[in-house]
Every structure is written in structure tokens, then in C-alpha cells.
């Protein structure tokens, strides 16, 4: 496994040079995290009463991204990013996962500022594609399983003239980047995506995304019976961002509609999520490069047909980022993040799986993140 990892890395890094790239850039980031979580566990062997207890207390390397960007011509460039992660599940205690691997063509379609992207790439849905992890947690779309952050496909990425915004149209597998090869289910329905962000005035952004997808293989099984797991999904997202002076507030609304085949339509349901995440940048106020972060999520899955699993989550996050160092463009190169997250499932609206607050948690995370980027030639 180690040899395979090494060979893969070396191969990926040599490939652009062998193909005669005009320019080669390398970048990477590492997230070293300490997690302390308090949850509820059974108080005794009767399995009826609960008590609060520390359930997680560990250090980890949550992400180890290493990426390379090769410019093959003025109109074509390629990028790949691998995620090196620690895992005690794997024999060698480490794994390698491809996160992005795509080519950008800026001259395939003669529309100004339009790029065609082919390969394993970002999914341009909601806030997931420009989520910069100012908070340690994932984007709501990712956290609550609305869409994957990356997938295999083709997309058109364009910018409106005069800086009025951006748009994307995409067709993807719909299974997400973690599914590949034989692990990729034989889902014959691709996912279709449309995304639009408008910036009517500096500081104000309004956006929305729509995505359709089929999941869990195909409707008809080999023996011509209907697949009870097969479902179609309609995903929608609305975004409002206001960035004025030191304050930057995002609000996001997510909607998911899951429909099963007529024989199984009793399983149909819809879910919603509302999130708001403000940032207060203190640098212009006190000089120190410190950002205060907040977040509130309300994830409503109370319409799930499974009465045990239905739930209504309220989650609050408070955090602080201290940027020790920045690169030439002002992006943090060395950053410490402290987050407190409280997850609280509504007792009345949630199912029995969430009763007695047994899935409620309080989590403290301290993360040291460092990034680098350099042009090799």
C-alpha cells in the first residue's frame, strides 16, 4: 500500500512535466485538529438511563491536501488534488483519495469568460463550492447530505460581464467523488445542475442552485421488478450574502425532495435546512488579524416517513480564527481555529432515535491549519 501511494504521488507530480506544461504550481494544506466532544451514554446496564460523558478526545490530521496545477497552454490547464488522510481502518494507517482531477478549457465555446471543465471537479451547488472553511465544520450542503463537494462530470463555468456574477451548468455522475470504479453504482441517471450568483452591488450577493439526480441504481431490476430503493431527487438552494466593512454574513436555505417509484411512494419526503453564518473581521478594528465566527443551522427532517429517524436539529457554532501569517495576496497561510459546536435535537419533533437528548453533543475543536503554494517553473 505504501509503495502504491508513493508511486501514485510521484506519477501524478511528474505527469504535467512529462506532458510539457508551460507552468507548474504546487500547493497544499494540512489540518491538525484536536477534538473534545461530550455526549450522552447509557448510565448503567439497564440501558434506560443516560448520563453525560466525554465521548471523543483525540488528535487527528483531518485533511492533507496536496495539489498541482499545470498550464498546458493559454487556454488549457489541468489540476489535481489528492487528500492524504490518517485512518486506522487501513492497514498502513493512511489513505490517499483523489479529490479533484480536471482539465479547464477556456476556448471550447466562444463566449467571453466561459470555461469548460472536464473531470473530477467541484459541484457548484449552494455554498459548497466556495466554502473556505472559515469555520471548522463542513458547508451545510455537505454536512446535511444534500450534495457532494466533488463529482465526476462536465461543467460550464462563466462570469457575467462587468463583475455582475457567475453561472454554472453541469452534468455529473451524481454519486460523488468517493464512489469510483466498481464501487460506483450503476446509476444510469446523471445529475443535472444549474447555479447562478448575481452581485447587484458591491457587498450583496444573491444566488440559487437547482440539481436533479437519480439514486440507488435503476428503477427496473434485472428481473423486471421495481427497485424499492430507487428514488429521484430534486435539490434546491438559495443564498444571500452581505459583506460590508468588517461584517460578512451568509444565509443559506436548502430544500430536498425525495420521490420513490409509484409502488413505494409512501417513502417520499422532503427536508429543509436554514443556515446563517456571520464573520466579523477584527483586523480593521483592532489591527490583529482575528476573525470572530458564528453559525446557526436548523435542519428539518421531520417529514421523513421513518418515525424513528425523523429529526429536527438546532446547531450553534461560535468560533475564532487567528491568522498568524498570510501570503502575498493576503490569504491565511498559517491559521489557528477554535470552534465550539452545540447540537440539540428537538425532543418533540424528533423520532425515538433522538429521544432523551441521546444524540445531542457539545464539541470543542482546536485546529492548526497551514497552507503553501509555489510556482515550480
Amino acid at each position, binding site marked *: 500500500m505504501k509503495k502504491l501511494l508513493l508511486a501514485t504521488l510521484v506519477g501524478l507530480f511528474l505527469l504535467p512535466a512529462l506532458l510539457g506544461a*508551460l507552468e507548474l504550481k504546487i500547493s497544499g494544506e494540512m489540518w491538525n485538529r484536536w477534538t473534545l466532544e461530550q455526549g450522552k451514554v447509557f448510565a448503567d446496564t439497564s440501558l434506560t438511563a443516560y448520563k453525560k460523558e466525554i465521548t471523543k478526545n483525540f488528535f487527528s490530521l483531518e485533511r492533507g491536501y496536496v495539489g498541482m496545477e499545470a498550464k498546458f497552454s*493559454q487556454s488549457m490547464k489541468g489540476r489535481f488534488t489528492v487528500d492524504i488522510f490518517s485512518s486506522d481502518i487501513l492497514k498502513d494507517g493512511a489513505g490517499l483519495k483523489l479529490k479533484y482531477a480536471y482539465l479547464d478549457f477556456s476556448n471550447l465555446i466562444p463566449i467571453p469568460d466561459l470555461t469548460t471543465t472536464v473531470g473530477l471537479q467541484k459541484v457548484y451547488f449552494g455554498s459548497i463550492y466556495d466554502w473556505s472553511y472559515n469555520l471548522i465544520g463542513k458547508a451545510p450542503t455537505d454536512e446535511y447530505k444534500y450534495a457532494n463537494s466533488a463529482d465526476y462530470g462536465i461543467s460550464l463555468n462563466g462570469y457575467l460581464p462587468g*463583475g455582475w456574477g457567475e453561472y454554472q451548468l453541469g452534468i455529473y455522475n451524481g454519486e460523488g467523488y468517493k464512489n469510483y470504479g466498481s464501487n460506483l453504482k450503476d446509476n444510469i441517471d446523471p445529475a443535472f445542475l444549474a447555479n447562478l*450568483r448575481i452581485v447587484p452591488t*458591491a*457587498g450583496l450577493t444573491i444566488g440559487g442552485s437547482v440539481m436533479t439526480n437519480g439514486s440507488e441504481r435503476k428503477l427496473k431490476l434485472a428481473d423486471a421488478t421495481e427497485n424499492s430503493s430507487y428514488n429521484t431527487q430534486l435539490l434546491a438552494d438559495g443564498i444571500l450574502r452581505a459583506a460590508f466593512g468588517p461584517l460578512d454574513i451568509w444565509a443559506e436555505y436548502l430544500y430536498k425532495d425525495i420521490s420513490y417509484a409509484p409502488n413505494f411512494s409512501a417513502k417520499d419526503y422532503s427536508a429543509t435546512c436554514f443556515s446563517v453564518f456571520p464573520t466579523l473581521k477584527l483586523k480593521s478594528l483592532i489591527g490583529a488579524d482575528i476573525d470572530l465566527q458564528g453559525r446557526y443551522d436548523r435542519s428539518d427532517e421531520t417529514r421523513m416517513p421513518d418515525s424513528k429517524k425523523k429529526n429536527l436539529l438546532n446547531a450553534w457554532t461560535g468560533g475564532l480564527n487567528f491568522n498568524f501569517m498570510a501570503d502575498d495576496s*493576503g490569504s491565511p497561510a498559517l491559521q489557528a481555529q477554535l470552534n465550539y459546536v452545540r447540537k440539540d435535537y428537538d425532543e418533540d419533533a424528533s423520532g425515538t432515535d433522538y429521544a432523551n437528548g441521546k444524540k445531542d453533543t457539545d464539541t470543542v475543536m482546536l485546529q492548526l491549519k497551514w497552507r503553501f503554494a509555489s510556482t515550480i517553473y
Partner: protein
Amino acid sequence: MNKKYIIVALILLLAISFAVAKSRKITCSGSTTVLPIAQATAEAYMDKHPDVNISIRGGGSGVGIAALQNGSADIANSSRVMKAKEVSQAKSKGINPTPYAVALDGIAIVVHKSNSVANLSIAQIRDIYNGKIKNWSEVGGPKLPIVVISRDVASGTFEVFNEKALGGSKVVSSAQLLASNNAVASTVGSTPGGIGYIGLGYLTEEIKTVKVNSITPNTKTVQDGSYPLARKLYMYTNGKAKGDLGSYIAFIQSDAGQKIVVEQGFIALK
């Protein structure tokens, strides 16, 4: 009693912090072409306004624009117009990029001083940079292989050259990509078969400027736009420049500022 002391201390701390944050400092970042203009005008401005501190960094137009977007620079020096993508990204972060033209420039095509070639057409320049023309003898010069020297992609000079001379076509893979105008001038000056492109402010005795489409880059041809590789140089600010920032940019655009622009080898706006 103790609480009162703590509150007073906190108020004092905040007041000091605000005072520090409001010190009269201007930060510029970006284009290496605009760098000498920014440096020379900043020195002259600070001589007249000793209470204002202007710090200047290079890095390329792309780096300066990113710094303006991230709020780490007050001025992005750029040798090109901002792209739709950059404007959109800036606006979504609450930054309203506003351009101020500070000088005119011609991108000079330069060769080694021993090279006899005196004129190149835009088509010939494109073919040289595409790798179709490989020897100076193909354009009336000596029998000498051409060494193509270009700029890195963060460079605004490259972007303008790419648009106006190359028409977006590919630079030959053997080209040397250098990070600054000075590096290009120095490398061409020490390479007999070299060809490069630099801002007019970087011309030296060690290199020779060739005409483009039979037009010499000079004040007249750049100002009237007849030189094919003429361009404006910009300083971008977040919204309309006010206070010290507005005063500094107004100084650059004034007669006194434009005199410094000319002294640095560039061309005045009018």
C-alpha cells in the same frame, strides 16, 4: 470596584486599538511594471506628507488584485484591466474595485544589442513566441537560434502581450518564464539570441528595442494609440479613493506626479 477597573481597561484597550488601526498607512501591492512608478511617487508624496506611510510590494498584477480582494492592500497596482471573474469575486466580498489610470506604457519588444533585427510585425512576433520561427535568419537577422523569454502568468504584462500580440495562442514550451521586467531585461541582455518584452520603464543600454509593425514605441505613438502594444497602467482601490488614498492618487495624476512617471521611463497620461 474591580469591575470598574476592568471596564476602564477594556475601553482604553479598544481606544488604543482603534488609534493604531487608524494610523495613516497606505499599502500597495501588485504589478512589477507599475512598481517603479508607485515607489518613486510614494517617496515624493511622503516627502510632502511625512505623517503618511506608503508601503509597496510587487508580486504581479494578479497578486495585487487578490490582495485588494482580501483587504490586505489599499491599492492594487495593475498593468491590465481586471477580469470579470476578479471583479465579481471582489464585489461579492464587499470590495468595489475602482480603476485609476496612472500612466501609459508600451510593451517594448527587446533583443540583444548585437542583434541586427530592427523591426518585427505582430505576426512575426506571434510566430516566434509560438515556436514557428526558430532562427533570427527567418526574419532577416543573423543565423542564430531564437531564445524565447516570456513572463509568468501572474504578470499583467504577459496578459496584455498575450492578448495584443499572441491573440491567446500558446507560447512555445521551451520559453523561459521569468517573474519580473528586470529579469527579462537582464536575461535578454546576456543572451545573444534572446527576445523578450518589457515595460518601457525597464529599457537599458544592454538591450535593443525593435519596432513593431514599423512603429517605434515612444510618447507620441503610445499616446495616440498607434503603437500596437500600448496600454494603460492602473491603480485599483476599493470604491472612490478618499482621504490620504485619494490625495496620493491625485498626486500621481497631477503634473508633478506625471513628471515622475516620465522620469521613470513611462509615458504621461496626456
